[in-house]
């Protein structure tokens, strides 16, 4: 399977351990990716204060680049996924808008390029493989909850690979790595996105309730696939920093279980519960 890869703006900074681990893990799953040349920001939170046509145009700029590569687009970031999928949907549904947006594109976007999230790509890759990669490290002590956040699941059409209201893609992937995760209520709750900056008290309320739910379930780690969810939960200041829950990207944990080293998976880059990382991942 080959995809045009959209890294997103956090891939070289706050989510660099996600970027590095996802390349290695997707390679193990037989997925090949080529970075979209000269991709641009999807607009993120601020796309929601831009005129609709400009918000769509930002996404289409990168969609056209993927179209020229002849591959479907894949991204690891939930916000990028949502912006790009929404742009593609707007182009499909509104021919008048599409015509105008296409006037500034090097070639018209013909609405054939699909936008896929990393979760869908990994689930499909696992299904297509004769066998999952061998579990070569048993993570005995991790008791994780899977945190999806909002935007991977917030698309108009049904998702073929998962339920939008009670997703299990991450649980299934972790199962294939020999890890059982715990059920909980907050898998789809919002981390607040940019509210952590614009409305700190709202951001804190949202993040605290997510972390508290994980803790009440007896989890000792949170696993996510969204860079902003990871960042917001990771920087939430726990009342008792010594037992704060580490927040890992799913690719870091899969990579570890499938034999990659903690150094390669850059597990020490998590902030919350950093001192407990080695104990949780033993």
């Amino acid at each position, binding site marked *: 399977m080959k995809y045009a890869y959209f890294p997103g*703006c*956090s891939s*070289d*900074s*706050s*989510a*660099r*351990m996600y970027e590095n681990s996802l390349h290695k893990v997707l390679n193990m799953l037989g997925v090949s990716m080529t970075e979209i040349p*000269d*991709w*641009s*920001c999807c*607009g*993120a*939170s*601020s796309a*929601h*204060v*831009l*005129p*609709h*046509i*400009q*918000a769509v*145009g*930002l996404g289409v*700029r990168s969609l056209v680049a993927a179209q020229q590569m002849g591959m479907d687009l894949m991204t690891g970031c939930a916000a990028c996924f*949502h912006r790009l999928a929404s742009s593609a949907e707007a182009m499909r549904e509104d021919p*008048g*808008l599409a015509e*105008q947006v296409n006037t*500034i594109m*090097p070639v018209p976007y013909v609405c054939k390029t699909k936008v896929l999230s990393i979760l869908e790509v990994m689930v499909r890759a696992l299904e297509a493989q004769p066998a999952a990669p061998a579990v070569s490290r048993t993570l005995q002590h991790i008791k994780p909850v899977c945190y999806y956040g*909002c*935007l991977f*699941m*917030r*698309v*108009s059409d049904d998702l073929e690979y998962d339920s939008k209201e009670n997703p299990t893609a991450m649980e299934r992937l972790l199962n294939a790595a020999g890890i059982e995760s715990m059920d909980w209520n907050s898998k*789809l*709750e*919002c981390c*607040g*996105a*940019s*509210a952590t*900056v*614009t*409305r*700190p008290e*709202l951001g804190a*309320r*949202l993040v605290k309730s997510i972390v508290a739910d994980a803790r009440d379930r007896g989890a000792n780690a949170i696993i996510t696939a969204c860079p902003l969810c990871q960042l917001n939960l990771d*920087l939430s*200041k726990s009342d008792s920093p010594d037992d704060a829950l580490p927040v890992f990207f799913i690719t870091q944990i899969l990579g570890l279980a499938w034999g990659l080293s903690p150094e390669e998976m850059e597990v*020490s*880059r*998590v*902030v919350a519960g*950093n001192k407990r990382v080695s104990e949780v991942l033993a």
Partner: protein
Amino acid sequence: MSVELPETFHLCYQCKKCSAGCTISEESDLPIDEIIGWLQMGDIDRVLRSEHLWICTGCQSCTTRCPNGVKPGELLDYLRVMALDRGIKPSPRVKTFHDAFIKMLKKRGRSSEVALMSAFYMKHMVRLEDLKNGYDLFMSGRLKPLGGPKVKDKASVRAVFALKENHTDEEMEDGK
């Protein structure tokens, strides 16, 4: 630029599923189902003055759960642009954040967390915990210094920001 609201709000039959799942139901001064209701009644001024527009986290739970394709989350995007157009300003932190983000996008074509936060804290007081967060990220090697990657073809990004919605001929003339 004039903004035309999508007509989807007429499809609402007030089931209130949107508000039931709304992330900011505790903070909202005008829940999303009421926003749609007032739009149906034609009271757009009341809607544009609502803080809900600027507290919304954009989680899109309302749009995903709406049984009748109203797309409330997308309506809010239009309403925010409409409010800005009419000179209704969001709270200072919200305004600084989006202004800085969009300015950065226009200039670089990509976002840089350091550039964004530097621009933001030029205008707002840095709290102790913000400093602590910056320090933690720096120590874990997750801060990219200023001047990270930029888009090469900047003209194509500028072209996106020059796009204007073309409803009717006369509306194009007030181009702002």
